[in-house]
Protein backbone atom coordinates (compact mmCIF):
# COMPACT_ATOMS: atom_id res chain seq x y z
CA UNK A 1 0.00 0.00 0.00
CA UNK A 2 1.29 3.40 -0.85
CA UNK A 3 0.35 6.05 1.61
CA UNK A 4 1.16 9.54 0.59
CA UNK A 5 1.07 11.94 3.48
CA UNK A 6 -0.12 14.65 1.15
CA UNK A 7 0.23 15.59 -2.45
CA UNK A 8 2.51 18.51 -3.05
CA UNK A 9 0.07 21.34 -3.07
CA UNK A 10 2.38 24.02 -4.26
CA UNK A 11 0.46 26.39 -2.03
CA UNK A 12 0.95 25.15 1.45
CA UNK A 13 4.10 26.37 3.02
CA UNK A 14 5.77 23.01 3.23
CA UNK A 15 4.99 19.35 2.96
CA UNK A 16 3.69 18.26 6.32
CA UNK A 17 5.66 15.90 8.46
CA UNK A 18 4.40 12.43 7.94
CA UNK A 19 4.98 10.11 10.86
CA UNK A 20 2.94 7.07 9.99
CA UNK A 21 2.23 5.11 13.08
CA UNK A 22 -0.72 2.84 12.66
CA UNK A 23 -0.29 -0.74 11.64
CA UNK A 24 -2.21 -1.99 8.65
CA UNK A 25 -5.52 -3.61 9.39
CA UNK A 26 -8.11 -5.34 7.31
CA UNK A 27 -11.67 -4.21 6.84
CA UNK A 28 -12.29 -6.00 10.09
CA UNK A 29 -9.33 -5.92 12.46
CA UNK A 30 -8.12 -9.15 14.02
CA UNK A 31 -9.66 -8.07 17.30
CA UNK A 32 -12.98 -7.36 15.66
CA UNK A 33 -12.95 -10.79 14.01
CA UNK A 34 -12.08 -12.33 17.38
CA UNK A 35 -15.01 -10.43 18.92
CA UNK A 36 -17.36 -11.83 16.29
CA UNK A 37 -16.02 -15.32 16.98
CA UNK A 38 -16.63 -14.83 20.67
CA UNK A 39 -20.13 -13.61 19.88
CA UNK A 40 -20.96 -16.80 18.01
CA UNK A 41 -19.30 -18.86 20.78
CA UNK A 42 -21.44 -17.03 23.32
CA UNK A 43 -24.62 -17.85 21.41
CA UNK A 44 -23.63 -21.51 21.02
CA UNK A 45 -22.76 -21.94 24.69
CA UNK A 46 -25.86 -20.05 25.73
CA UNK A 47 -28.14 -22.25 23.63
CA UNK A 48 -26.55 -25.36 25.14
CA UNK A 49 -27.14 -23.98 28.64
CA UNK A 50 -30.72 -23.02 27.79
CA UNK A 51 -31.65 -26.27 26.07
CA UNK A 52 -29.69 -28.89 28.03
CA UNK A 53 -29.23 -27.60 31.58
CA UNK A 54 -29.89 -30.97 33.17
CA UNK A 55 -27.20 -32.77 31.14
CA UNK A 56 -24.72 -29.99 31.84
CA UNK A 57 -25.38 -30.04 35.57
CA UNK A 58 -25.15 -33.81 35.67
CA UNK A 59 -21.81 -33.73 33.81
CA UNK A 60 -20.43 -31.22 36.30
CA UNK A 61 -21.92 -32.85 39.37
CA UNK A 62 -23.95 -29.73 40.11
CA UNK A 63 -27.48 -31.08 40.09
CA UNK A 64 -30.12 -28.68 41.34
CA UNK A 65 -28.59 -25.65 39.58
CA UNK A 66 -30.51 -26.08 36.32
CA UNK A 67 -32.42 -22.81 36.62
CA UNK A 68 -29.21 -20.90 37.28
CA UNK A 69 -27.54 -22.51 34.26
CA UNK A 70 -30.49 -21.52 32.10
CA UNK A 71 -30.27 -17.95 33.36
CA UNK A 72 -26.57 -17.93 32.46
CA UNK A 73 -27.54 -19.32 29.07
CA UNK A 74 -29.93 -16.45 28.46
CA UNK A 75 -27.17 -14.05 29.45
CA UNK A 76 -24.74 -15.68 27.01
CA UNK A 77 -27.21 -15.56 24.12
CA UNK A 78 -28.07 -11.92 24.79
CA UNK A 79 -24.40 -10.95 25.00
CA UNK A 80 -23.58 -12.89 21.84
CA UNK A 81 -26.37 -11.23 19.86
CA UNK A 82 -25.31 -7.82 21.15
CA UNK A 83 -21.71 -8.44 20.09
CA UNK A 84 -22.75 -9.42 16.58
CA UNK A 85 -25.28 -6.61 16.18
CA UNK A 86 -23.39 -3.70 17.72
CA UNK A 87 -21.25 -1.19 15.88
CA UNK A 88 -18.75 -1.34 18.72
CA UNK A 89 -18.54 -4.67 20.54
CA UNK A 90 -16.14 -3.39 23.22
CA UNK A 91 -18.67 -2.90 26.06
CA UNK A 92 -20.26 -6.26 25.33
CA UNK A 93 -16.89 -8.02 25.44
CA UNK A 94 -16.37 -6.37 28.83
CA UNK A 95 -19.74 -7.89 29.69
CA UNK A 96 -18.38 -11.28 28.69
CA UNK A 97 -15.35 -10.78 30.96
CA UNK A 98 -17.71 -10.07 33.87
CA UNK A 99 -19.76 -13.12 32.91
CA UNK A 100 -16.62 -15.25 32.85
CA UNK A 101 -15.88 -14.18 36.41
CA UNK A 102 -19.39 -15.14 37.42
CA UNK A 103 -19.06 -18.51 35.67
CA UNK A 104 -15.74 -19.24 37.41
CA UNK A 105 -17.16 -18.26 40.79
CA UNK A 106 -20.16 -20.52 40.23
CA UNK A 107 -17.99 -23.42 39.11
CA UNK A 108 -15.81 -22.93 42.21
CA UNK A 109 -18.81 -23.61 44.41
CA UNK A 110 -19.06 -27.05 42.76
CA UNK A 111 -15.78 -28.12 44.32
CA UNK A 112 -17.31 -27.88 47.79
CA UNK A 113 -18.02 -31.23 49.43
CA UNK A 114 -17.29 -34.50 47.74
CA UNK A 115 -18.16 -33.90 44.08
CA UNK A 116 -17.59 -37.14 42.14
CA UNK A 117 -17.39 -35.11 38.91
CA UNK A 118 -14.65 -32.78 40.13
CA UNK A 119 -12.40 -33.79 37.21
CA UNK A 120 -15.08 -32.63 34.76
CA UNK A 121 -15.52 -29.49 36.81
CA UNK A 122 -11.78 -28.74 36.70
CA UNK A 123 -11.82 -29.20 32.94
CA UNK A 124 -14.77 -26.83 32.62
CA UNK A 125 -13.07 -24.25 34.87
CA UNK A 126 -9.90 -24.49 32.77
CA UNK A 127 -11.93 -23.99 29.60
CA UNK A 128 -13.67 -20.92 31.04
CA UNK A 129 -10.30 -19.56 32.18
CA UNK A 130 -8.98 -20.00 28.65
CA UNK A 131 -11.95 -18.18 27.14
CA UNK A 132 -11.51 -15.44 29.75
CA UNK A 133 -7.97 -14.88 28.52
CA UNK A 134 -9.31 -14.57 24.96
CA UNK A 135 -11.97 -12.11 26.12
CA UNK A 136 -9.38 -9.97 27.89
CA UNK A 137 -7.03 -10.04 24.89
CA UNK A 138 -9.95 -9.09 22.65
CA UNK A 139 -11.17 -6.19 24.77
CA UNK A 140 -7.67 -4.81 25.22
CA UNK A 141 -7.09 -5.04 21.49
CA UNK A 142 -10.36 -3.33 20.65
CA UNK A 143 -9.56 -0.55 23.11
CA UNK A 144 -6.06 -0.10 21.68
CA UNK A 145 -7.48 0.03 18.13
CA UNK A 146 -9.61 3.01 19.11
CA UNK A 147 -6.92 4.86 21.02
CA UNK A 148 -6.36 8.22 19.35
CA UNK A 149 -2.94 9.29 18.29
CA UNK A 150 -0.98 11.05 20.98
CA UNK A 151 -1.16 14.83 20.70
CA UNK A 152 1.45 16.12 18.30
CA UNK A 153 1.92 12.80 16.52
CA UNK A 154 0.43 14.30 13.39
CA UNK A 155 1.23 17.93 12.92
CA UNK A 156 -0.85 19.57 10.22
CA UNK A 157 -0.12 23.16 11.21
CA UNK A 158 1.42 23.87 7.82
CA UNK A 159 -1.64 22.74 5.90
CA UNK A 160 -3.53 25.94 5.35
CA UNK A 161 -4.50 25.41 1.72
CA UNK A 162 -3.91 29.13 1.22
CA UNK A 163 -1.08 30.77 -0.72
CA UNK A 164 -0.57 33.28 2.08
CA UNK A 165 -1.07 33.17 5.84
CA UNK A 166 -4.71 32.62 6.74
CA UNK A 167 -5.01 36.09 8.26
CA UNK A 168 -4.02 37.62 4.93
CA UNK A 169 -6.67 35.58 3.13
CA UNK A 170 -9.52 36.82 5.29
CA UNK A 171 -12.11 38.35 3.02
CA UNK A 172 -10.36 37.37 -0.22
CA UNK A 173 -13.74 36.20 -1.50
CA UNK A 174 -15.72 38.97 0.18
CA UNK A 175 -16.82 40.17 -3.23
CA UNK A 176 -18.74 36.95 -3.73
CA UNK A 177 -22.41 37.79 -4.23
CA UNK A 178 -24.39 35.51 -1.96
CA UNK A 179 -27.43 34.43 -4.01
CA UNK A 180 -30.65 36.10 -2.95
CA UNK A 181 -32.20 32.83 -1.79
CA UNK A 182 -29.23 32.21 0.51
CA UNK A 183 -29.26 35.66 2.08
CA UNK A 184 -31.00 36.72 5.21
CA UNK A 185 -34.14 38.43 3.86
CA UNK A 186 -33.82 42.19 3.81
CA UNK A 187 -36.37 42.96 6.54
CA UNK A 188 -34.68 40.45 8.85
CA UNK A 189 -31.09 41.61 8.30
CA UNK A 190 -29.33 42.92 11.38
CA UNK A 191 -29.22 46.69 11.73
CA UNK A 192 -26.03 48.59 12.17
CA UNK A 193 -25.85 51.53 14.55
CA UNK A 194 -29.58 51.30 15.10
CA UNK A 195 -30.41 51.66 11.43
CA UNK A 196 -31.44 49.06 8.85
CA UNK A 197 -28.66 48.04 6.49
CA UNK A 198 -29.75 48.08 2.86
CA UNK A 199 -29.92 44.63 1.34
CA UNK A 200 -27.12 43.99 -1.12
CA UNK A 201 -28.16 43.43 -4.73
CA UNK A 202 -28.25 39.78 -5.85
Amino acid at each position, binding site marked *: *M*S*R*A*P*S*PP*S*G*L*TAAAPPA*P*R*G*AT*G*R*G*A*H*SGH*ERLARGLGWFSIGLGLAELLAPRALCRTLGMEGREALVQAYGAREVATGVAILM*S*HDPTPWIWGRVAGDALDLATLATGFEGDNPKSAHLALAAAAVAGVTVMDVVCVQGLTA*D*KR*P*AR*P*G*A*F*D*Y*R*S*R*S*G*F*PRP*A*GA*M*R*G*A*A*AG*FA*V*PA*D*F*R*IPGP*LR*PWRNGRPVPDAPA
Partner: protein
Amino acid sequence: MKALVWHGTTDIRCDSVPDPTIEDGRDAIIKVTSCAICGSDLHLYDHFMPGMKSGDIMGHETMGEVVEVGRDNKALKVGDRIVVPFTIICGECDQCRRGNFSVCERTNRNKALGDTAFGHTTAGLFGYTHLTGGYPGGQAEYLRVPFADATHIKVPKGIPDEKLLFLSDIFPTGWQGAVQCDIQPEDTVAIWGCGPVGQMAIRSAILLGAKRVIAIDRVPERLSMAEAGGAETINFDEESNVVGRLNDMTGGKGPEKCIDAVGLEAHATGSLDAVYDRAKQAMMLETDRPHVLRQMIMACRPAGVLSVPGVYGGLLDKIPFGALMNKGLTVRTGQTHVNRWSDDLLRRIEEDQIDPSFVITHTVGLEDGPEMYRTFRDKQDGCIKVVIRP
Protein backbone atom coordinates in the same frame (compact mmCIF):
# COMPACT_ATOMS: atom_id res chain seq x y z
CA MET B 1 -13.61 -4.06 -13.12
CA LYS B 2 -12.65 -3.64 -9.48
CA ALA B 3 -14.91 -1.67 -7.14
CA LEU B 4 -15.51 -1.13 -3.44
CA VAL B 5 -18.73 -2.96 -2.67
CA TRP B 6 -20.96 -2.72 0.41
CA HIS B 7 -21.88 -6.10 1.86
CA GLY B 8 -23.22 -5.12 5.28
CA THR B 9 -22.40 -3.17 8.41
CA THR B 10 -18.66 -2.34 8.40
CA ASP B 11 -18.21 -4.85 5.58
CA ILE B 12 -16.87 -3.23 2.42
CA ARG B 13 -14.83 -5.33 0.01
CA CYS B 14 -12.83 -4.76 -3.13
CA ASP B 15 -14.72 -7.01 -5.56
CA SER B 16 -14.72 -7.77 -9.25
CA VAL B 17 -17.99 -6.51 -10.74
CA PRO B 18 -19.31 -6.13 -14.30
CA ASP B 19 -18.14 -3.05 -16.20
CA PRO B 20 -20.79 -0.34 -16.53
CA THR B 21 -22.45 0.19 -19.89
CA ILE B 22 -24.37 3.04 -21.51
CA GLU B 23 -28.01 2.66 -20.52
CA ASP B 24 -29.42 5.95 -21.77
CA GLY B 25 -28.54 8.38 -24.49
CA ARG B 26 -27.54 11.07 -22.01
CA ASP B 27 -25.08 8.78 -20.18
CA ALA B 28 -21.32 8.79 -20.22
CA ILE B 29 -18.80 6.29 -18.90
CA ILE B 30 -15.65 7.58 -17.28
CA LYS B 31 -12.42 5.86 -16.43
CA VAL B 32 -11.94 6.90 -12.84
CA THR B 33 -8.57 8.53 -12.20
CA SER B 34 -9.24 9.55 -8.57
CA CYS B 35 -11.99 9.11 -6.05
CA ALA B 36 -12.28 9.69 -2.33
CA ILE B 37 -13.94 8.37 0.79
CA CYS B 38 -16.35 10.93 2.20
CA GLY B 39 -17.33 11.33 5.82
CA SER B 40 -20.92 10.65 4.78
CA ASP B 41 -19.78 7.27 3.36
CA LEU B 42 -19.10 6.35 6.97
CA HIS B 43 -22.82 6.61 7.72
CA LEU B 44 -23.26 3.81 5.18
CA TYR B 45 -20.23 1.89 6.43
CA ASP B 46 -21.69 1.95 9.96
CA HIS B 47 -25.14 1.38 8.43
CA PHE B 48 -26.88 4.26 10.13
CA MET B 49 -28.44 5.31 6.81
CA PRO B 50 -31.22 2.97 5.69
CA GLY B 51 -31.65 1.78 2.14
CA MET B 52 -28.39 -0.01 1.33
CA LYS B 53 -28.36 -3.42 -0.34
CA SER B 54 -25.55 -5.95 -0.39
CA GLY B 55 -23.66 -5.50 -3.65
CA ASP B 56 -24.02 -1.70 -3.86
CA ILE B 57 -20.92 0.06 -5.16
CA MET B 58 -19.75 2.87 -2.87
CA GLY B 59 -18.47 6.34 -3.62
CA HIS B 60 -19.69 9.78 -4.63
CA GLU B 61 -16.48 11.83 -4.93
CA THR B 62 -15.09 10.91 -8.30
CA MET B 63 -13.30 12.30 -11.33
CA GLY B 64 -11.90 10.82 -14.47
CA GLU B 65 -11.71 10.74 -18.23
CA VAL B 66 -14.71 10.20 -20.49
CA VAL B 67 -14.29 6.95 -22.42
CA GLU B 68 -17.80 6.50 -23.84
CA VAL B 69 -20.68 8.85 -24.50
CA GLY B 70 -24.38 8.15 -25.11
CA ARG B 71 -25.85 9.15 -28.47
CA ASP B 72 -27.91 12.03 -27.07
CA ASN B 73 -25.12 13.52 -25.01
CA LYS B 74 -23.88 16.54 -26.92
CA ALA B 75 -22.10 18.14 -23.97
CA LEU B 76 -19.27 15.63 -23.59
CA LYS B 77 -16.89 13.82 -25.86
CA VAL B 78 -14.42 10.99 -25.37
CA GLY B 79 -11.26 12.29 -23.75
CA ASP B 80 -12.93 15.06 -21.75
CA ARG B 81 -11.69 15.35 -18.18
CA ILE B 82 -14.54 15.75 -15.73
CA VAL B 83 -15.24 15.92 -12.02
CA VAL B 84 -18.53 14.21 -11.20
CA PRO B 85 -20.77 16.09 -8.75
CA PHE B 86 -22.24 13.77 -6.15
CA THR B 87 -25.76 14.99 -6.97
CA ILE B 88 -27.15 13.66 -10.25
CA ILE B 89 -28.99 16.44 -12.04
CA CYS B 90 -31.19 16.64 -15.11
CA GLY B 91 -30.59 20.35 -15.59
CA GLU B 92 -34.12 20.80 -16.90
CA CYS B 93 -36.62 20.41 -14.08
CA ASP B 94 -38.04 23.33 -12.12
CA GLN B 95 -35.62 22.86 -9.22
CA CYS B 96 -32.57 22.55 -11.48
CA ARG B 97 -33.60 25.72 -13.29
CA ARG B 98 -33.73 27.47 -9.91
CA GLY B 99 -30.23 26.19 -9.08
CA ASN B 100 -31.55 23.84 -6.42
CA PHE B 101 -29.69 20.93 -7.96
CA SER B 102 -29.62 18.68 -4.89
CA VAL B 103 -33.40 18.46 -5.02
CA CYS B 104 -33.61 17.72 -8.74
CA GLU B 105 -37.06 16.29 -9.36
CA ARG B 106 -36.17 13.77 -12.03
CA THR B 107 -32.96 11.90 -11.27
CA ASN B 108 -34.04 9.75 -8.34
CA ARG B 109 -35.15 6.61 -10.13
CA ASN B 110 -36.65 5.38 -6.83
CA LYS B 111 -38.84 8.46 -6.54
CA ALA B 112 -41.54 6.62 -4.59
CA LEU B 113 -39.01 5.68 -1.90
CA GLY B 114 -37.77 9.26 -1.73
CA ASP B 115 -41.32 10.57 -1.51
CA THR B 116 -42.05 8.17 1.33
CA ALA B 117 -38.88 8.90 3.25
CA PHE B 118 -38.72 12.66 2.81
CA GLY B 119 -42.20 13.75 1.70
CA HIS B 120 -40.81 14.70 -1.70
CA THR B 121 -38.02 13.07 -3.63
CA THR B 122 -34.57 14.61 -3.73
CA ALA B 123 -31.91 14.21 -6.40
CA GLY B 124 -30.35 10.89 -7.26
CA LEU B 125 -26.96 10.44 -5.64
CA PHE B 126 -24.06 8.22 -6.57
CA GLY B 127 -23.47 5.27 -4.26
CA TYR B 128 -25.74 6.56 -1.54
CA THR B 129 -28.61 4.19 -0.74
CA HIS B 130 -31.66 3.21 -2.76
CA LEU B 131 -33.58 6.12 -1.24
CA THR B 132 -31.64 8.31 -3.64
CA GLY B 133 -31.75 6.08 -6.67
CA GLY B 134 -29.42 3.22 -5.83
CA TYR B 135 -26.94 4.38 -8.46
CA PRO B 136 -23.57 2.56 -8.47
CA GLY B 137 -20.87 4.76 -6.98
CA GLY B 138 -17.49 5.91 -8.14
CA GLN B 139 -15.09 4.01 -5.91
CA ALA B 140 -14.39 1.83 -8.90
CA GLU B 141 -12.31 1.67 -12.04
CA TYR B 142 -15.19 2.89 -14.20
CA LEU B 143 -18.37 4.83 -13.51
CA ARG B 144 -21.55 5.29 -15.50
CA VAL B 145 -22.66 8.89 -15.15
CA PRO B 146 -26.42 9.18 -15.73
CA PHE B 147 -27.68 12.50 -17.11
CA ALA B 148 -24.01 13.12 -17.84
CA ASP B 149 -24.71 15.99 -20.23
CA ALA B 150 -25.73 17.98 -17.12
CA THR B 151 -24.03 16.01 -14.34
CA HIS B 152 -20.42 16.98 -14.82
CA ILE B 153 -17.87 19.68 -14.19
CA LYS B 154 -15.45 19.98 -17.08
CA VAL B 155 -11.96 20.67 -15.80
CA PRO B 156 -8.83 21.66 -17.67
CA LYS B 157 -5.86 19.38 -18.12
CA GLY B 158 -2.65 20.36 -16.39
CA ILE B 159 -4.06 20.75 -12.88
CA PRO B 160 -3.45 17.70 -10.65
CA ASP B 161 -6.44 15.55 -9.70
CA GLU B 162 -5.85 16.31 -6.03
CA LYS B 163 -6.66 19.99 -6.50
CA LEU B 164 -9.83 19.32 -8.47
CA LEU B 165 -11.34 16.12 -7.04
CA PHE B 166 -13.03 17.84 -4.10
CA LEU B 167 -15.15 19.96 -6.44
CA SER B 168 -17.27 16.80 -6.46
CA ASP B 169 -18.46 17.31 -2.88
CA ILE B 170 -16.52 18.51 0.13
CA PHE B 171 -15.27 21.83 -1.23
CA PRO B 172 -18.66 23.06 -2.49
CA THR B 173 -20.29 21.50 0.60
CA GLY B 174 -18.05 23.48 2.95
CA TRP B 175 -18.52 26.53 0.74
CA GLN B 176 -22.32 26.24 0.71
CA GLY B 177 -22.23 25.69 4.47
CA ALA B 178 -20.50 29.06 4.82
CA VAL B 179 -22.51 30.83 2.10
CA GLN B 180 -25.74 29.75 3.82
CA CYS B 181 -24.56 31.78 6.80
CA ASP B 182 -24.62 34.99 4.76
CA ILE B 183 -21.43 35.99 6.55
CA GLN B 184 -21.06 39.64 7.55
CA PRO B 185 -17.72 41.29 8.33
CA GLU B 186 -18.52 41.44 12.06
CA ASP B 187 -19.57 37.81 12.32
CA THR B 188 -18.05 35.10 14.47
CA VAL B 189 -18.67 31.72 12.84
CA ALA B 190 -18.52 28.60 15.00
CA ILE B 191 -17.97 25.35 13.12
CA TRP B 192 -18.62 21.97 14.73
CA GLY B 193 -16.48 19.19 13.27
CA CYS B 194 -13.02 19.51 11.74
CA GLY B 195 -13.29 16.64 9.31
CA PRO B 196 -12.91 17.35 5.59
CA VAL B 197 -16.17 19.33 5.24
CA GLY B 198 -15.42 21.28 8.42
CA GLN B 199 -11.94 22.13 7.10
CA MET B 200 -13.43 23.40 3.83
CA ALA B 201 -16.07 25.37 5.74
CA ILE B 202 -13.35 27.01 7.85
CA ARG B 203 -11.43 28.15 4.76
CA SER B 204 -14.65 29.27 3.08
CA ALA B 205 -15.69 31.33 6.10
CA ILE B 206 -12.26 32.97 6.18
CA LEU B 207 -12.38 33.73 2.46
CA LEU B 208 -15.89 35.12 2.79
CA GLY B 209 -14.63 37.52 5.41
CA ALA B 210 -15.74 36.23 8.81
CA LYS B 211 -14.22 38.28 11.61
CA ARG B 212 -13.51 35.14 13.64
CA VAL B 213 -13.86 31.42 13.02
CA ILE B 214 -14.02 29.05 15.97
CA ALA B 215 -13.68 25.31 15.24
CA ILE B 216 -14.81 22.59 17.63
CA ASP B 217 -13.46 19.02 17.60
CA ARG B 218 -11.45 16.71 19.82
CA VAL B 219 -8.95 15.14 17.42
CA PRO B 220 -5.62 16.97 17.85
CA GLU B 221 -4.47 16.68 14.24
CA ARG B 222 -7.81 17.96 12.96
CA LEU B 223 -7.64 20.88 15.35
CA SER B 224 -4.11 21.69 14.20
CA MET B 225 -5.30 21.67 10.58
CA ALA B 226 -8.18 23.96 11.59
CA GLU B 227 -5.71 26.39 13.16
CA ALA B 228 -3.68 26.32 9.95
CA GLY B 229 -6.78 27.50 8.13
CA GLY B 230 -7.22 30.47 10.43
CA ALA B 231 -9.56 29.12 13.10
CA GLU B 232 -9.41 29.42 16.84
CA THR B 233 -10.17 26.03 18.34
CA ILE B 234 -12.06 24.35 21.15
CA ASN B 235 -11.09 20.78 22.07
CA PHE B 236 -14.28 19.41 23.60
CA ASP B 237 -12.36 16.62 25.27
CA GLU B 238 -10.66 19.30 27.36
CA GLU B 239 -13.58 21.75 27.52
CA SER B 240 -16.82 19.87 28.01
CA ASN B 241 -18.89 23.04 28.36
CA VAL B 242 -18.66 24.11 24.73
CA VAL B 243 -21.56 26.56 24.96
CA GLY B 244 -19.97 28.22 27.99
CA ARG B 245 -16.61 28.40 26.26
CA LEU B 246 -18.17 29.98 23.16
CA ASN B 247 -19.88 32.52 25.40
CA ASP B 248 -16.56 33.28 27.09
CA MET B 249 -14.90 33.78 23.72
CA THR B 250 -17.63 36.11 22.44
CA GLY B 251 -18.24 38.35 25.42
CA GLY B 252 -21.25 36.32 26.51
CA LYS B 253 -23.12 36.87 23.25
CA GLY B 254 -22.44 33.65 21.33
CA PRO B 255 -21.41 33.24 17.69
CA GLU B 256 -23.70 34.88 15.12
CA LYS B 257 -23.37 31.94 12.75
CA CYS B 258 -23.03 28.22 13.50
CA ILE B 259 -22.19 25.43 11.06
CA ASP B 260 -22.83 21.74 11.74
CA ALA B 261 -20.19 19.81 9.79
CA VAL B 262 -20.76 16.68 11.86
CA GLY B 263 -24.20 15.27 11.16
CA LEU B 264 -25.88 12.20 12.50
CA GLU B 265 -22.99 10.38 14.16
CA ALA B 266 -21.95 13.00 16.67
CA HIS B 267 -19.48 11.81 19.29
CA ALA B 268 -19.51 13.62 22.57
CA THR B 269 -17.74 13.14 25.84
CA GLY B 270 -19.11 13.84 29.29
CA SER B 271 -22.49 14.73 27.90
CA LEU B 272 -25.74 13.32 29.20
CA ASP B 273 -27.62 13.84 25.96
CA ALA B 274 -24.97 11.90 24.05
CA VAL B 275 -25.46 8.90 26.36
CA TYR B 276 -29.20 9.26 25.88
CA ASP B 277 -28.79 9.29 22.07
CA ARG B 278 -26.55 6.22 22.17
CA ALA B 279 -29.09 4.30 24.22
CA LYS B 280 -32.04 5.31 22.04
CA GLN B 281 -30.12 4.54 18.86
CA ALA B 282 -29.16 1.09 20.20
CA MET B 283 -32.83 0.38 20.88
CA MET B 284 -33.77 1.66 17.40
CA LEU B 285 -35.88 4.44 18.92
CA GLU B 286 -33.90 7.18 17.18
CA THR B 287 -31.92 7.11 13.96
CA ASP B 288 -29.58 10.08 14.43
CA ARG B 289 -27.52 11.54 17.26
CA PRO B 290 -28.25 15.29 17.16
CA HIS B 291 -25.86 16.41 19.91
CA VAL B 292 -24.32 19.09 17.70
CA LEU B 293 -27.69 20.48 16.62
CA ARG B 294 -28.76 20.86 20.24
CA GLN B 295 -25.49 22.55 21.12
CA MET B 296 -25.68 24.92 18.16
CA ILE B 297 -29.21 26.01 19.04
CA MET B 298 -28.12 26.79 22.59
CA ALA B 299 -24.84 28.46 21.58
CA CYS B 300 -25.98 30.64 18.68
CA ARG B 301 -26.54 34.32 19.30
CA PRO B 302 -30.25 35.22 19.09
CA ALA B 303 -31.32 36.13 15.54
CA GLY B 304 -28.35 34.15 14.26
CA VAL B 305 -28.11 31.51 11.58
CA LEU B 306 -27.60 27.75 11.83
CA SER B 307 -26.18 26.12 8.71
CA VAL B 308 -26.35 22.34 8.48
CA PRO B 309 -24.25 20.72 5.74
CA GLY B 310 -23.78 17.69 8.03
CA VAL B 311 -25.90 14.76 6.88
CA TYR B 312 -28.94 13.62 8.84
CA GLY B 313 -30.99 10.61 7.81
CA GLY B 314 -34.15 10.22 9.83
CA LEU B 315 -35.68 10.99 13.20
CA LEU B 316 -34.10 13.17 15.87
CA ASP B 317 -35.12 13.46 19.48
CA LYS B 318 -35.06 16.17 22.14
CA ILE B 319 -34.35 19.09 19.85
CA PRO B 320 -34.74 22.31 21.89
CA PHE B 321 -37.17 23.82 19.43
CA GLY B 322 -38.37 26.27 22.02
CA ALA B 323 -34.92 27.82 22.13
CA LEU B 324 -34.71 27.77 18.36
CA MET B 325 -38.02 29.57 18.01
CA ASN B 326 -37.66 32.06 20.82
CA LYS B 327 -34.14 33.02 19.78
CA GLY B 328 -35.36 33.69 16.26
CA LEU B 329 -32.75 31.51 14.64
CA THR B 330 -32.67 30.89 10.91
CA VAL B 331 -31.88 27.31 9.87
CA ARG B 332 -30.49 26.52 6.44
CA THR B 333 -29.84 22.92 5.47
CA GLY B 334 -29.50 20.73 2.45
CA GLN B 335 -27.35 18.53 0.35
CA THR B 336 -25.06 20.64 -1.77
CA HIS B 337 -26.15 22.23 -5.03
CA VAL B 338 -22.69 21.38 -6.38
CA ASN B 339 -23.06 22.81 -9.88
CA ARG B 340 -24.32 26.10 -8.48
CA TRP B 341 -20.87 26.79 -7.06
CA SER B 342 -18.51 24.74 -9.20
CA ASP B 343 -17.59 27.34 -11.85
CA ASP B 344 -16.74 29.91 -9.20
CA LEU B 345 -14.78 27.46 -7.07
CA LEU B 346 -12.87 26.08 -10.07
CA ARG B 347 -11.84 29.64 -10.87
CA ARG B 348 -10.63 30.12 -7.30
CA ILE B 349 -8.51 26.97 -7.60
CA GLU B 350 -7.13 28.05 -10.97
CA GLU B 351 -6.29 31.47 -9.53
CA ASP B 352 -4.50 29.80 -6.59
CA GLN B 353 -6.79 31.40 -4.05
CA ILE B 354 -7.10 28.00 -2.43
CA ASP B 355 -5.67 24.53 -2.93
CA PRO B 356 -8.13 21.96 -1.53
CA SER B 357 -5.52 19.19 -1.59
CA PHE B 358 -4.27 20.37 1.81
CA VAL B 359 -6.78 18.00 3.42
CA ILE B 360 -5.44 14.77 1.88
CA THR B 361 -3.63 12.58 4.37
CA HIS B 362 -3.74 9.18 2.65
CA THR B 363 -3.54 8.06 -0.97
CA VAL B 364 -4.13 4.36 -1.65
CA GLY B 365 -5.19 1.91 -4.34
CA LEU B 366 -8.67 0.41 -4.55
CA GLU B 367 -7.58 -2.82 -2.90
CA ASP B 368 -6.69 -0.89 0.25
CA GLY B 369 -10.04 0.91 0.30
CA PRO B 370 -11.75 -1.40 2.80
CA GLU B 371 -8.95 -0.92 5.30
CA MET B 372 -9.00 2.84 4.81
CA TYR B 373 -12.71 2.98 5.60
CA ARG B 374 -11.86 1.63 8.99
CA THR B 375 -8.83 3.87 9.47
CA PHE B 376 -10.88 6.94 8.50
CA ARG B 377 -13.83 5.95 10.67
CA ASP B 378 -11.61 5.38 13.71
CA LYS B 379 -9.56 8.55 13.02
CA GLN B 380 -6.40 6.43 13.17
CA ASP B 381 -3.03 7.14 11.61
CA GLY B 382 -3.73 10.87 11.44
CA CYS B 383 -6.35 10.18 8.80
CA ILE B 384 -8.46 13.12 7.66
CA LYS B 385 -9.03 12.48 3.95
CA VAL B 386 -8.43 9.40 1.86
CA VAL B 387 -7.94 9.58 -1.90
CA ILE B 388 -8.14 6.37 -3.90
CA ARG B 389 -6.44 5.91 -7.24
CA PRO B 390 -8.04 2.92 -8.95
